[in-house]
């Protein structure tokens, strides 16, 4: 793609990440639909796993950085920036990019390895998180909205979007207001709850390596959400999404709190039918949410 073309229409390369494309296609599908509606073009490239920051970065930083940069190169070849829909992918690729940019030694190492498979990188591509792009288009989001959802939502940021905070110099990591702005634009109320910014318990290889610990951290999170009276949890990370949705059934306490990725929530507000998003693939039923949205739609009509 030429630079001229990308200037004509805002265009990004969508980095779907393993979990969205291979386990929750509803997230991938809603992402395409909502960005088309707000006039942002998304391209596809041949990506590998980001690779996951908790697990693979714990093995070896240089391997992690090299594989991360290989992914960025795919978008760089088309002169577009990368847009992720997952905190893990965002953290991985953003950090790989920074490590590459900051050190000449790293540049030589990565480009030395990439040269052997016919690739190279100049460090000029940016890595973005989709929530920042949505936030930038808040007006377009409001214009494209068909239903004021009227839900009470518990916002879950997840860790790698907020921290380390050098990714977003203008966001206070102890009191952010980005997802809240988007859900409010969709006609939802963001409810406050105890330890709102805490971890879901899946990251750092704990989900696979020390499952019981991950479940205890999750239990604490869900307990606080339940006390807040929220209808559902809205997240911006498929890995948190998976842990919140799939591990709920492993807990003694039966919470049954529906989990929605922000893309899905936005899709529903844009009038996409839940069936077309395969919302039934969620382990925790989202039927109550869908009913509420249906009655909100009727009220409007």
């Amino acid at each position, binding site marked *: 793609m030429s630079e001229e073309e990308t200037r004509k229409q805002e265009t990004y390369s969508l980095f779907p990440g393993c979990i969205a494309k291979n386990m929750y296609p509803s997230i991938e599908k809603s992402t395409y639909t909502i960005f088309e509606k707000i006039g942002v073009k998304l391209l596809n490239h041949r990506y590998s796993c980001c690779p996951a920051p908790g697990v693979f970065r*714990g093995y070896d930083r240089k391997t992690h950085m090299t594989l991360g940069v290989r992914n960025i190169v795919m978008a760089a070849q088309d002169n577009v920036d990368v847009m992720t829909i997952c905190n893990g992918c965002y953290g991985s690729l953003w950090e790989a990019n920074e490590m590459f940019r900051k050190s000449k030694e790293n540049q030589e190492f990565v480009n030395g390895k990439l040269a052997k498979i016919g690739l190279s990188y100049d460090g000029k591509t940016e890595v973005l998180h989709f929530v920042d792009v949505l936030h930038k288009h808040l007006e377009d989001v409001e214009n494209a909205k068909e239903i004021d959802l009227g839900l009470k939502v518990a916002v879950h940021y997840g*860790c*790698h979007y907020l921290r380390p905070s050098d990714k977003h110099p203008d966001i206070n990591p102890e009191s952010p207001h980005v997802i809240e702005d988007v859900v409010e634009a969709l006609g939802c109320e963001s409810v406050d709850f105890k330890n709102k910014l*805490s971890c879901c*318990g899946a990251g*750092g290889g*704990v989900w*696979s*390596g020390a499952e019981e*610990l991950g479940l205890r951290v999750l239990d604490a999170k869900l307990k606080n959400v339940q006390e807040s009276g929220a209808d559902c949890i809205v997240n911006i990370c498929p890995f948190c999404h998976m842990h919140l949705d799939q591990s709920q059934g492993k807990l003694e306490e039966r919470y049954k709190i529906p989990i929605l990725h922000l893309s899905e929530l936005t899709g529903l507000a844009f009038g996409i039918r839940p069936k077309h998003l395969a919302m039934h693939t969620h382990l925790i039923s989202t039927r109550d949410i869908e009913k509420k949205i249906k009655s909100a739609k009727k009220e409007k009509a």
Partner: protein
Amino acid sequence: MSEAETKKVDQMEEDPYELENFHKILEDSKILNCVQCGKCTGGCPAGRDSRIRIRELIHLAHEGHDIKDCKELWLCTTCYNCQERCPKGVDTTEAIISLRNRAIRKGDHNFPEIHVTAITSLRDQADGFPLSPDVESIRSVIGLPKHPHDLAHDPEGLKKFQELMDDLDIVGLIEKQCGDSKPWKYVDIDYKPPVARGAKKKEAESDE
């Protein structure tokens, strides 16, 4: 884990690279700035339910103890709460990650076994979570291509990716250094809940 169970790095007979590497981690993550205030442990979500105490790990490393075999290293969810809140600017989470890297280089026998399968899955399929046939059919029903436009479905690109991974030799390293790791649970770690300050004194008083 106690100080007696870990050896001091400087007292160990080992290659200079390792010694240099350990000191580099201390320096890069600014561990020497630590004043042991405990804000890191205070904000740790994993620490509430397990034996991991970031302050203790940082303290042991600060004192020069080799903590490569501490299982606690693998209990961190890398949420970065501690690092964000450290008043002395210690890169605590980055230190944990670097210490994990070092543990693997040196041979970590407490490495969670399941991570060995994660790295082979990444090499073979370019994904940490591969696509299942069930999801394939759901994808086509909702109007997405049955196979995602990714590296796993691009044989030529995948071959090059595998060449790159083999060149980095990460699978070989994990299998060689961590192949003998045994399954373990975090609850196996002898966990004693922290005793509140002054509790012992009160106990002694009430005994009297």
